[in-house]
């Protein structure tokens, strides 16, 4: 009963929330991008390339945030057999993977003029790459299992194991990096960041979070509709002849 009632309530609620979410996300992203690209000053060292940061840092934040979201949704899905949580976790994974790709791509674009190379085996870059692999594994597991409830539980176990492992991976990679090469690359995380950079960055971060929320709602709704269509289709097949005669 709960299983049928919940997606319905979710559809109602998310349908009402969606316009606000997407509106706020659009407003924040446009405002943030305007401030980042036109208002924020050039950095005295990095000149215009500093603007990549406004796209890059929020993407890095979201890469971790989305995985944490998936893990929480997975725990809720496993513990309460909550179908909407399962679908939300599934819906979030490709978005998180895209954030990871965006982070790596913008990082490479920034690294080329700043560090003179597209890629270094820096601790953060390496753990970001591993995180992308984790996303891909999670998505592949979903794809490999046909039955949705079984796939949801298998993927949930993987997400929880992954979230336990991520801090260990981050620590090990940082440790590995200091062992192999002493810190040679200065990054933009001094004790303080100028307010003219901070405000656009915070707005962009909020914009990314709202953008993610909008997409997750949208994708979860699509998933629910897809499943409804599938069960309708199966019901149709089951009573095939009858349906034909009514049609």
């Amino acid at each position, binding site marked *: 009963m709960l299983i049928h009632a919940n997606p319905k309530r979710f559809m109602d609620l998310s349908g009402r929330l969606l316009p606000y979410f997407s509106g706020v996300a659009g407003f924040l992203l446009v405002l943030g991008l305007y401030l980042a690209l036109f208002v924020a000053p050039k950095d005295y060292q990095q000149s215009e390339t500093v603007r990549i940061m406004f796209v890059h840092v929020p993407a890095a934040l979201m890469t971790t945030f989305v995985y944490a979201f998936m893990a929480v949704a997975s725990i809720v899905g496993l513990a309460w057999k909550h179908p909407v949580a399962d679908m939300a976790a599934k819906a979030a994974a490709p978005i998180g993977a895209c954030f990871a790709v965006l982070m790596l791509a913008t990082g490479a674009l920034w690294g080329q003029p700043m560090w003179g190379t597209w890629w270094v085996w820096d601790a953060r870059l390496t753990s970001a790459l591993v995180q992308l692999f*984790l996303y891909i594994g999670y998505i592949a597991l979903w794809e490999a299992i046909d039955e949705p409830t079984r796939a949801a539980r*298998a993927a949930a*176990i993987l997400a929880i194991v992954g979230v336990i492992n991520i801090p260990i991976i981050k620590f090990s990679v940082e440790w590995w990096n200091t062992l192999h090469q002493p810190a040679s690359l200065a990054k933009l995380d001094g004790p303080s960041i100028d307010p003219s950079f901070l405000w656009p960055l915070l707005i962009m971060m909020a914009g990314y979070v709202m953008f993610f929320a909008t997409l997750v709602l949208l994708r979860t709704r699509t998933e629910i509709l897809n499943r409804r269509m599938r069960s309708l289709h199966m019901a149709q097949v089951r009573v095939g002849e009858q349906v034909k005669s009514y049609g």
Partner: protein
Amino acid sequence: MSSLNTQSQPGLLPIVKSMIARDMVLSARIGGSGFLAAVFFIIVVSLVPLGVGPQPEVLSVIASGMIWVGVLLASLLSLDRLFQADFEDGSMELFFLLPLPLPVLVLAKVVAFWLTTALPLIAVAPILGLLLNLPGPSFGALILALVIGTPGLSLIGSIAAALTMGLRRGGLLLSLLSLPLCVPILIFGVGSIAEGSMWNSSMALLLATTLIAIVVAPIAAAGALKLNMT
């Protein structure tokens, strides 16, 4: 009644022992997957000098890393039989009827897997160290790191093996799922050899990672097995 109970339900330890013995006999009779894994390991590592060139200085720098990557690949290739074989012939259903908590069952399977697959790899590792010009003092650390680290690899692999049990093309997916999770063990394993002493900080971290895997992996793998059996 109580005497009957103890007769029909032996304690955990005898079941675990017979599970491990069964797996080892099976592995020996089937033609030694451990032997094949060791040969695979030797071949993979022998290909490295062909790829990077025969300079001894270069080889001695990358020796420990290549040995660890080889161990990782060789144990991954054998992992897809860990639960799959029992799933296919129906033994897994009988295991579920045993008065044995599932995580303990997983642990017993992993112990047997480690004895039949990882031990042969550890045994040939020093020979490969010689081939790759591994510095002399590092051999002790290499063996110790492998003994500490490979149980962790097997345990992490058991989660992926349980998740992919019964799936089409499970083997490929198994590698995809477990390789990123094995990153810390690879890093600490190689690091502990590089430090040049027997017992060092990375050896301790390697041990810690394996200990965490001992706690987490049997529970996660048991959950995945249960899910794939229903």
